[in-house]
């Protein structure tokens, strides 16, 4: 079974993100970029499936500027077999990404797409679901455990109320949550080997997709600073505040 794993280049999780002076985005100039941590988990899961003999080939896909190739290389160093870069300078939004992924799935015919549940830059949490809908495939989002047997993927999902187990008939889309696994680091010899693995570069037009944004960014602002707390005299006052000010009970 072939696996397709989309990987996104994002601001490194260690970097303190700053809003650009024009208020139209976050500062990325001179900022350390790396693979979206949830995508690392997805790659790790794919590599484990290959090590178990369940998967035969892992294709890492990234979309965006040429530098996204570095993110693909990281995936190759972790154990993916080949890469595809859909190169574009256009700002990419989930629907366009999902459409391009669908076109790639049609072309590559993977048995499963494993991807991060969301990217840590915009936290959209949308692409996996959109892709499943476009493909008409079952989806197992927020996976914290994945088992494959007899053409079925059994996914334990992290939901608000606890854990939910779903059985998906393959092919399917699975999105990785934090506890699915602990991703390996790329060892130095594997980084060297990754240099020799192929990366194919194509354009959105090759997939027949117009990636132009459908959403307009009005402005980007820092989250409001957390206000200092207050001390309440007694439980009655606490309940009153929760009811009348916070309006949560």
């Amino acid at each position, binding site marked *: 079974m072939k696996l397709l794993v989309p990987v996104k280049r994002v601001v490194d999780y260690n970097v303190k993100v700053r809003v650009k002076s024009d208020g139209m985005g976050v500062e990325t100039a*001179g*900022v350390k970029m790396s693979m979206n941590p949830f995508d690392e988990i997805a790659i790790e899961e794919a590599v484990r499936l290959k090590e178990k003999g369940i998967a035969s080939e892992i294709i890492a896909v990234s979309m965006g500027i040429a530098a996204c190739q*570095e993110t693909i*290389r*990281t995936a190759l*160093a972790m154990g993916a077999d080949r890469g595809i870069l859909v190169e574009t300078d256009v700002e990419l939004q989930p629907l366009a990404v999902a459409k391009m992924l669908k076109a790639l799935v049609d072309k590559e015919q993977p048995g499963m797409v494993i991807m991060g549940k969301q990217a840590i830059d915009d936290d959209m949490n949308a692409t996996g679901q959109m892709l499943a809908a476009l493909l008409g495939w079952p989806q197992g989002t927020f996976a914290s455990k994945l088992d494959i047997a007899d053409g079925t993927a059994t996914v334990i999902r992290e939901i608000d109320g606890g854990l939910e187990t779903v059985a998906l008939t393959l092919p399917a889309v699975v999105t990785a949550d934090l506890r699915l696994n602990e991703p390996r680091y790329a*060892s130095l010899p594997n*980084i060297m080997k*990754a240099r020799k693995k192929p990366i194919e570069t194509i354009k959105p037009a090759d997939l027949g997709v117009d990636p132009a944004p459908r959403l307009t960014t009005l402005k980007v602002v820092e989250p409001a600073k957390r206000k200092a707390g207050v001390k309440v005299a007694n439980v009655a006052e606490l309940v009153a505040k929760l009811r009348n000010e916070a309006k949560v009970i």
Partner: protein
Amino acid sequence: MTILDRPTLDFLLYDWLGGEALLTRPAFAEHNRESVASMLDTAARLAETHFLPCFKKSDREEPSQNEHGAHVIPEIRTAIAAYAQAGFAAAPFPAAIGGLGLPNLIHTAATAFFMGANVPVASYSMLTVGNAGLIAHFGTQAQIETFVTPALEGRWTGTMCLSEPQAGSSLADIVTKAIPEGEDGLGVRYRLFGNKMWISGGDHDAADNIVHLVLAKIPGPDGKLIAGSKGISIFIVPKLMPDGSRNDVTLAGLNHKMGFRGTTNCLLNFGERDGAIGWRVGEIGQGLPIMFQMMNEARIGVGLGATMMGYRGFQLALDYARTRPQGRRTGTRDVSSKQIPIIEHADVKRMLLACKSYTEGALALILYCAKLVDESKTADTAQARAEADAVLGLLTPVAKTWPSEYALAANDIAIQVHGGYGYTRDFDVEQLYRDNRLNPIHEGTTGIQGLDLLGRKILRDGGKILAQFATRVAATIKAAKDDFPAEANALQAAMDAIAATVHALASVNDEAEMLANATNFLSAFGHTVLGFIWLDLALCISQGDHGAHFAAGKHAACRYFYSFEMPKIAAWLAPVIACDNLTTRMQDEWF
């Protein structure tokens, strides 16, 4: 908080030191900027996951001794194995012995992350790489297969056993002896008898075996040891023999240190019973030259460790100063107004500027030297390789000492920025200071480095190497004339003062008086080198687009260095150039 700011590191590696051109050399063509970036990512991640988390624990639970030897916290075994399994131990070695042929510059940059996270734990691996490097360079094929391979795989660690209780800085006086015992597949075999002191990583339970490299003397036909350093040879003495049986090497005791506690420090007895079995590396009497080939890189390694401890202290101080509200702007009378973070106070900014100029300057110095190591091996012409090698030799005492003194000063300042909290063990800065306080002492004290610089590296050849370095400095001064005229003039004045001092000393006949103020000279020369580094960095940053804050920060650090630090040079040189003989004439009784 990141261990090492990547934009700063990338600026130093690529914009300033031309790392991309280095990677196109045939020796390094397997690598490129992208693969190097991934390697540095892996270094950063491993440092964060395996070295940083046990930083405090490795200090709090210092090594103990039991019937099996020295016991250390289990995290150290995991860290040593992870470092090697990721390929970092083997990376600088040639492909023939399982390495990746990584440039020294890049391996040094990767090492910086481990040093920034936890030098005392990382030092097991650093010692092991140095030990393996010596055997790989001077050992036989059988010695390499037996002792280097397991070390690079992270199963064994290595040490350097030089000092003895009665012979520390004075290695010529060692008395450990090696009695020949024929030959076997691993070379000429000896039985060693003697005591070795201050052995870092000398015993521990964090690896399956320990390979000691031991300096010892082979008795002459009369049974006596040859006096002086010419009689010293070097031997491989494993804790466990290749078949797993115990060699006659015993842990006699652990030293209980002020800091750096993650690394065991041992008194080892060789030959308590019938003699510790060892095999000679290289020729008889070549022990010191062989050891010192590694020592130069070990000294740059010390400088890197010192730098990164200072750098981490600076980052912690910066973080604290940004988040700790205390007091109001000078001149504010309204006591009900909100307190400001202490970074707003001029004196706190002065301290942080000092830390920035010391630690980022020291990092630049270390990487500059690391690149010289690559240049000395792979530059296009024999002349260029020789020049790089000579300048590296001149700068090695500075690369060891300047970070040991000034990154330590940054650790001191980091405590000051934290105020009372910095003096408590709840924060990391006091431990960083204690850990770093070792560095002016080991691998040649600051005093020894001063003698090495002034005596061996400058006066012995009549200042020829100094002149080669001066050519590099002159190019920077020339380039800086228009944009940084004040700094260019100050650097020229410092170089002139250094040259005048060397000239004055050359006419002193008494060698003891000539070298009496060598440490002062080292201080002055070290600051001059850093003045050169900072001016060169300031020039380089002006040429690229690195973002306004980034460039302004580097320029401010350069300005700080020239305004607050460079004036010290004249004061240090004053007694040197006057050939002041106070210290040689001072008598014990007068104290």
